[in-house]
């Protein structure tokens, strides 16, 4: 559904800033019907990728095909296949919910009968039924987001792009939004690409892409990504983490990674964590504030992958 090949995007140099490579020769294929999450720390290039994907800017090099159409050569055809939900509101606050939906239908050339049918469909899964004649201005954050999603789905896109759509929502509204999205995605066998920082949103995805400094670090199912870290890890907190890390390495010959006050022993085999924990407690009890065995979550994979990259290639992302 989405084929990205050797995509590179360089922001041109200006008087104050040098040229900056936001995306570095990225190749990625999202299969039809997949729910794909695009993640990465700030400045990783995912927003740039999103802008290019929805046809708002042109890259320095590379190609993208959306449902077989070249996005750069036939933007009209590619645009007709997709729906976009932006991070910032893209509805007119001064118009009512109904007027906004109607306008969207006009932009995509839906006939009156198709519009009526799709509107009914949208009313079935949203909580907007009684709010159609209210201005979007008066809606709560959660409802306003529902308008955005309902609007994008009105045209039955084969591909739905979402840019951090749950930003600013409370946890309950966020859950509602994601659940509705998953349900509709399964029913319609729609392809979804969503950028997100929130790893609980990524756990149910078919594929998770992790970007860092313009490079694609990983693109895999959540299960396989978790598998990359071994199955368990020992996590301990210490106020003297720097010193303690050195001593664990020297005395016990264990591999460690440190994030602030937290030390992680990630490459432990199944069942090996408990003996390690006991050994650590026996040796360094006084230096340890807390210690636990943890099943890796996607967030841990993310921290592992993006943290790794930092020390290796700090220059990546600058144009020499």
């Amino acid at each position, binding site marked *: 559904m989405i084929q990205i090949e050797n995509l*590179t*995007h*360089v*922001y*041109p*140099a200006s008087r104050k800033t040098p*040229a900056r*490579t*936001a995306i570095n020769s990225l190749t990625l294929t999202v299969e039809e019907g997949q729910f794909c999450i695009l993640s990465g720390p700030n400045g990783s290039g995912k927003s740039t990728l999103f802008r290019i994907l*929805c*046809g*708002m*800017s*042109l*890259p*320095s*090099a590379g190609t993208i095909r959306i449902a077989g159409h070249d996005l750069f050569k036939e*933007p*009209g*055809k590619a*645009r*007709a296949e*997709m729906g*976009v939900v*932006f991070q*910032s*509101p*893209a*509805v*007119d*606050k*001064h*118009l009512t919910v109904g*007027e906004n939906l*109607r*306008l*969207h239908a*006009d*932009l*995509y*050339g839906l006939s009156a009968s198709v519009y009526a049918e799709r509107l009914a469909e949208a009313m079935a899964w949203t909580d907007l039924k009684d709010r159609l004649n209210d201005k979007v201005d008066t809606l709560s954050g959660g409802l306003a987001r529902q308008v955005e999603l309902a*609007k994008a789905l009105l045209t039955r896109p084969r591909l739905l792009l979402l840019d951090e759509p749950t930003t600013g929502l409370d946890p309950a509204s966020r859950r509602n939004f994601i659940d509705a999205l998953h349900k509709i995605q399964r029913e319609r066998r729609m392809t979804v690409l969503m950028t997100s920082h929130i790893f609980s949103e990524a756990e149910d995805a078919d594929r998770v892409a992790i970007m860092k400094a313009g490079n694609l670090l990983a693109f895999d199912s959540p299960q396989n990504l978790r598998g990359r870290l071994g199955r368990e890890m020992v996590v301990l907190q210490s106020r003297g983490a720097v010193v303690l890390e050195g001593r664990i390495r020297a005395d016990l010959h264990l591999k460690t990674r440190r994030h602030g006050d937290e030390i992680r022993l990630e490459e432990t085999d199944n069942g090996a964590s408990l003996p390690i924990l006991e050994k650590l407690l026996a040796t360094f009890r006084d230096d340890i504030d807390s210690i636990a065995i943890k099943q890796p979550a996607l967030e841990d994979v993310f921290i592992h992958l993006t943290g790794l990259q930092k020390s290796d290639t700090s220059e990546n992302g600058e144009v020499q």
Partner: protein
Amino acid sequence: MIRVAFALARREFVRFMRQPHRVIGTVAQPILFWLFLGSGFNASFHAPGMNGVSYLQYFYPGVMLMMMLFASIFSSITIIEDRDAGFLQSVLVAPVSRMAIVLGKVMGGVSIAMVQTLIFTIAAPFLGMPLGLPSLGLLILAYVLSSAGFAAMGFFFAWTMRTSSGFHAIMMVFLMPLWMLSGALFPLENAPGWLHAVMIINPVSHALVLMRGPFYSAPAQLFADHRWLLALGVTLVWDAVFLLGSMARVQRREKGAPA
């Protein structure tokens, strides 16, 4: 494309009508301007070759033009607001012709300007400037053509601007002089030579000729008047240049530097 443009234009119009202070402000200001200036200058005004024309009458199409000019140009300012509020991005990612995006905004601006100017046109018969139906038709044609040109020009300049205050500043520096030197305030005929030259190349003065014509000449006479036909031609070219220019701006997508 027409459907998309109409849908976008309708949105502009609905938004305008929902902001009553905007409606009142844009109609009341030129009317006050006209009444105060017009009454003040009325006694001392003698236009060459326009015997018996009072200043209130002379100034009337000028104020009409001012209304048209400002209403059209400032309706395009909403493109900056649309970009800030995020609405514009959903229009840009839709599979719609880029010309439809421009036309939507311009037609919205024209319809808003029309409402205001048509209200003002009601005053004409009471000023002793009655309009026959054919003349009224020509007047409306003049409104639409000049308003479309101004709205498209506003679009063209607003597209790359980031704040509406910047747009205000530039448009005031740019528009006020254009309007003053159009013949709206005083006749071109007794102006010094250099000023006269400026007035000739000023597109706003051609728009004024286009609007003033129907008040003083019958439609048949206008179509034989080379000055009026020239004004019509200039305005049409003006429309085309800024509509196409605006479309080119919308079409241009921000591009990455060569890798």
